[in-house]
């Protein structure tokens, strides 16, 4: 069984994000980039399935600029068998990425595609769902537990939902997106970091895959969140309730 894991190159989670002076986006110049943390969880889950003998190959895919190769090398240092880069300088939106992944999946015929539930840069939380729709595959998002039954051709996924958890059984091939508590990603070992460079990494252009990645959405303006204003002290509970009712309007 082959597993595909898309990985996105995003601003490192330790970095304080700064908005560009002209409000066109986030300043990425001279900023440390890293693999989206939810995608690290996706890679980890795929590797565990491989180590358990369920999967035979783990393929990491990244879409974006040339530097995404570094993210793929990271995935391969963690244990992915090979990498595929769809290289473009165009700003990629979730639908475009889902279409690119569909084209790759068509070539690769995986049984399972595991994605991070969202990327920490745009927090869109759309790619996995869009990909499932385009493929016509079943999907289980926000997974906190994944159990594959290869003989039955199914995967049982526990999902984190608002009220608690929900368990779904999906027929393979299927799409799973990962939540935080699914697993704790490993550290890359030194020998694997050294080996990663020798693993195959194929590069495609969107055109070669027959996908139009032109953005469908326009970013009008990016601004910092409004700074939090100072709080007020209330004299008593009555005043608090009055303010919550009439000023904050959060209780009736």
């Amino acid at each position, binding site marked *: 069984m082959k597993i595909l894991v898309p990985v996105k190159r995003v601003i490192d989670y*330790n970095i304080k994000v700064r908005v560009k002076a002209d409000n066109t986006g986030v300043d990425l*110049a*001279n900023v440390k980039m890293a693999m989206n943390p939810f995608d690290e969880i996706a890679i980890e889950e795929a590797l565990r399935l491989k180590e358990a003998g369920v999967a035979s190959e783990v393929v990491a895919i990244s879409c974006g600029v040339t530097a995404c190769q*570094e993210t793929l*090398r*990271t995935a391969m*240092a963690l244990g992915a068998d090979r990498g595929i880069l769809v290289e473009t300088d165009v700003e990629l939106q979730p639908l475009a990425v889902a279409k690119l992944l569909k084209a790759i999946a068509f070539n690769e015929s995986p049984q399972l595609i595991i994605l991070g539930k969202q990327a920490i840069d745009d927090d869109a939380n759309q790619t996995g769902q869009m990909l499932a729709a385009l493929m016509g595959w079943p999907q289980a998002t926000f997974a906190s537990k994944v159990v594959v039954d290869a003989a039955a051709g199914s995967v049982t996924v526990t999902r984190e939902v608002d009220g608690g958890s929900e368990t779904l059984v999906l027929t393979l091939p299927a799409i799973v997106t990962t939540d935080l508590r699914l697993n704790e990603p490993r*550290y*890359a*070992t*030194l*020998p*694997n*970091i*050294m080996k*990663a*460079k020798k693993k195959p990494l194929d590069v495609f252009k969107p055109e070669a895959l027959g996908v139009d990645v032109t953005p469908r959405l326009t970013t009008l303006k990016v601004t910092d969140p409004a700074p939090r204003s100072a709080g007020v002290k209330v004299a008593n509970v009555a005043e608090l309730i009055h303010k919550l009712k009439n000023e904050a309007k959060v209780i009736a």
Partner: protein
Amino acid sequence: MSDYNAPLKDMQFVLNELAGLAQVSALPGYAEATPDVIEAILEESGKFTRDVLAPLNFSGDQEGAQWADKSVTMPKGFKEAYAQFVENGWNALSGNPEFGGQGLPKVISAVVQEMWQSANMSFSLCPMLTMGGIEALELYGSEEQKATYLHHMVSGRWTGTMNLTESQAGSDLAAVRTRAVPQGDGTYKLFGQKIFITYGDHDMAENTIHLVLARTPDAPAGVKGISLFVVPKFLVNADGTLGARNDVYSVSIEHKLGIHASPTCVMAYGDNGGAVGTLVGKENDGLKYMFVMMNAARYAVGLEGLALGERAYQQALGFARERVQSRAIEGSTGSVPIIRHPDIRRMLLLMRSQNEAMRAVAYVVASALDSALRHPDADERIRQQAFVDLMIPVVKAWLTETGNEVTSLGVQIHGGMGFIEETGAAQHFRDARITTIYEGTTGIQALDLIGRKVARDGGGALNTLLGQMKETQASVAKQSGVSFKALAAALHESIEAVTTAGDYIVANYGKDVRNVAVGAVPFLRLLGIVSGGWMMARAALAAQAKIGAGDTDPFYPAKINTAHFYADHVMAAASGLAKEVVQGGASALALDDVLF
């Protein structure tokens, strides 16, 4: 308590721009050390040290290693962290591929080791001692000894120790008394007591391999009668499995000023019939072997000075940004974060600029060591080795003395809270204190410098170095701007100072060695400060070139400013130190012993 984040940007900058990583990768056998692989290794090492080693630093200090019933229990979390460290392959980074190592260059090993030491100095001593043992066995061990021990030591499954010191034999190893009695079957039985044995016993690995200096029954007295033995905690069966417990035990551990999590053991050999060991190399050649290994050990300890300085800086910087106290001296509407106060800035920059200077000197020396070992041209190997030999005492003593100063500044920036253990600033200061002492005190390093490294070759290696510094000075003088003006002037004065002091040492070492010896430590400090200044000047030139090429990274102007600060505040001491070397002997020696 504080976090540790490896200063990857400065590390990469020094590696690529000053230490010539590209040239190192081009050396035979280092083809895999390409910049992209190195970047990935440093990234991951940064994560591992931040998440696994650094969080145990404070708790390890508070809890300390515990001793009971002739064995040591490590503080909470150390055993698990060590297992992960070994499993992830970090111990094998610089090891010979023949024994399962990754065979990466010394300069990469140095960067990664700095991270271990910054994150958790007590922890880092275990792999450091193992590396020493590996080096000894690889250079001088028999094929059988290599086959028995090296794979497990390179992986880290077994750890190593160095047993040199006895209570009467500290800096003077000629006084070693531990006995080794041949058994007629190729083995020896050892009897005696060793002190200050780092990681002499612990619970993180299955076996501990002790390298021990001892005397055979017919050995000549003094330095010419000392042999080196390998003595495992558990004897190793012919099939490689562990056998009987050997007669070597930790009989107590020391209560120390710092490095509390690193067990410093008193080791008893042969209390129950003799500890079984085998000879390494030839009888009576033990000290010779130690000297060969000493460069690596001294280098590694020098790096600790930098590593603790870096950790202290990160912590002090965090505090200086957060701590709000007093209005600005020029007036302000309210109290300001203390980083706004001029003297706090001065202290932060003293820390930062000296850390950066130390890092550059350390990596450049490690890179020279790689060339000295691997360069295809024999003359180049000799030149590089001469530079390494000259600089090893400087790396050991200047980095550790400066590490003491920098960690002390870290406490100072914290004010009263710096004196409180809970803050964690004091730990770095306490941990740093040993570094100027073990592996040869600063005084010993300085004597090595003025005697073997400067006077003996008539100042040859020193003059070669001064020539390189002059070339850099000339390039700096061609640049415009206040920073480069200050650097050019400071470098010019400093080179003069080293020249004056060096000439004095060469001229007077033979006829008035006591006078010259008074100036040994000041001279070492002078050479350290100026080597650091030379590196900061090279760093500023490299930064300027990046800016000129259109790079807008604020790292580069900051580097130029830091170099400027170093010229103004650190290199200013150079001419004073030269005076101390040249004039300071008489007054230090004149006073009669009884008048002290």
